[in-house]
């Protein structure tokens, strides 16, 4: 090997060795690099504190008055809501109780049917738990509290500010 070639070779050796050492340093440099680059790009999702959860369900900007009505159609039952009206936010989960008492001296079976005022409000009334359409048998003199859980859908039109939930109990004959 002539001296020129040996010198060229040595120059390559030096340069490549520097590259190797630099890449070793690069490995260590990755430690702060990840920190800074991920923060700058906003993708360090595991490290950022998440914001407080946002409530997107309840519409806190409006209140709607819900009135509760109870009728026992020709039945010997005393039937009334525990509260006559309530202010709710659309999207808010609400529970109200209806109290029913059988004043006859024998067991009576009844079934409730719901209706809404205004009529179109019915489609926005999401009842999660209610006693309607289920036959209820009360023994003589028995009283009972029956809950209704509901959510007023947030898409309730803005011009409706009062809705009424009305239950009517009908006696189911032939079940004494």
């Amino acid at each position, binding site marked *: 090997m002539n001296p020129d070639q040996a010198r060229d070779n040595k120059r390559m050796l030096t340069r*490549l060795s520097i*590259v*190797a050492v630099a890449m*070793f*340093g690069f490995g*260590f440099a990755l*430690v702060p690099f990840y920190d800074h680059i991920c923060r700058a790009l906003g*993708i360090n999702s595991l490290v950022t504190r998440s914001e407080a959860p946002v409530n997107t369900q309840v519409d806190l900007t409006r209140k709607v008055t819900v009135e509760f009505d109870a009728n026992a159609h020709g039945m010997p039952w005393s039937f009334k809501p525990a509260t006559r009206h309530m202010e709710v936010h659309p999207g808010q989960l609400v529970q109200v109780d209806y109290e029913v008492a059988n004043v006859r001296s024998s067991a009576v079976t009844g079934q409730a049917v719901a209706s809404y005022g205004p009529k179109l409000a019915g489609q926005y009334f999401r009842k999660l738990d209610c006693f309607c359409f289920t036959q209820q048998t009360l023994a003589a003199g028995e009283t009972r509290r029956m809950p209704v859980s509901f959510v007023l859908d947030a898409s309730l039109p803005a011009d409706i500010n009062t809705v009424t939930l009305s239950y009517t109990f009908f006696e189911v004959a032939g079940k004494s």
Partner: protein
Amino acid sequence: MSAVVDNHGHAGERGKDGHAHGHGDHHGGYGGVMRWITTTNHKDIGTLYLWFSFINFMVGGVMAMAIRLELFSPGIQFFNPDLFNQFTTMHGLIMVFGAIMPAFVGFANWQIPMMIGAPDMAFARLNNWSFWILPFAASLLVISFFTPGGAPGVGWTLYAPLTVQMGVGMDLTIFAVHLLGMSSILGSINIITTILNMRAPGMTLMRMPLFVWTWLITAYLLVAAMPVLAGAVTMSLTDRHFGTSFFNAAGGGDPVLYQHIFWFFGHPEVYIIALPAFGVVSQVIPAFSRKPLFGYASMVYATSAIAILSFIVWAHHMYTVGMPVTGQLFFMYATTLIAVPTGVKVFNWVATMWKGSLSFETPMLFAIGFLFLFTLGGFTGLVLSLVPIDIQLHDTYYVVAHFHYVMVAGALFSAFAGVYFWLPKWTGRMYDETLGKWHFWLTMIFFNMIFFVQHFLGLAGMPRRIPDYPLMFETWNKISSIGAFGFGLTQLLFLYIILKAIKSGEKAPEKPWEGADSLEWTHLPTPVPYHSFETPPNLK
């Protein structure tokens, strides 16, 4: 065009390494063991790398047999889970760093100087040291089994935080990795300098054989990536002993950081393994098609594209660590992009064979086997590159099947092709062609028996790195294990073929492969002399 051949005469006996030499041809003045310890000759060092590789192939193979033995049936029969994990880890480390990488460095040492018309590597003594580091490194890995706590059972990827808890075997492994890395980096510097500075006059870069090109690019990958691995395991070492918290969340670090740093090395690493394999195949297929390689320039550009892209895909090994979707998408797109230049290469190999005058000697059989099976492995890689699929398949046997297809049916088959192809040139003797074909077909059949069914296991949900599994995975595991035993025995046949060829193989003709046309075939006798191209050939 003159072909100056340095040859002290064929009149002598065959040396231990098989090549002929006369009484005037001395190997650096030493005989026996000292010759091998002090040699600075690229052919000797190539031989050392290849035998070292084969020994490690056997050792890693025994561990694979142990793994498949345990997995033959559900339940724990032979090895406690801790020892099983040690086998899994060491099988990976020994095969990757002790077998497959040194094999291709061995090819590089033997072939690069001859293919560019150089007398030897640029730094002949550094070359000797690069090799002799390796037996020490490999010994550290094996010795770790016998330390308290045994070898580390952490997987070849050495993830934190588990590595911080291992015994002294882990420290031995870290030092072994340092040494292995040193050897690779020094060897790569040698290869780059040799290729860039010592080509014969007229051997321009775009006239070099593809094997030389792939090694040039691989050597750059090694110089860039290997030091990062050294950094990662050094960080693990300091976390273990010197109070740092790189990977310890309690100290402000992050275990996932290890994965990022490791795989920044790890992905280029798999291309470091694959690219020289591509290079060998690019020599073998044209030779046995009696046609020049199709699309030489595009092969060079495709290889370069693969190398560059390999640096920006690492996190496809990490889709499940909690990366934001933005990151997952970036790495997914980049990874699918790598399939494009790879596809170009596969197409070019097929186009080389198209309308070629084909013959199917053993090297060509292994090269065609490579072509088919490496492509299959590439397809499963493409499947795994897709985030929603990988979420299901990560750490299952589908991944194990994928990388064994590309590493074994890819790199190993290419290495076999290279040995059968060049053995006549190195030793002046032919291997037994019938036995060679037996070796190929048995390897082919058993390989697929082991790993094809592992795709099903992965899709069915079998995790990797487990010694015991639910009953529903039994059938495929049994088939896979039987394939493994067959595969292992078949490699003993390979050893027999090589030894028989070296000792008593039929004398090779001057040009054993009529279609081979690189410098070692056209300008050097068979077998090649101990010193070749001491005066460079004029190729202008």
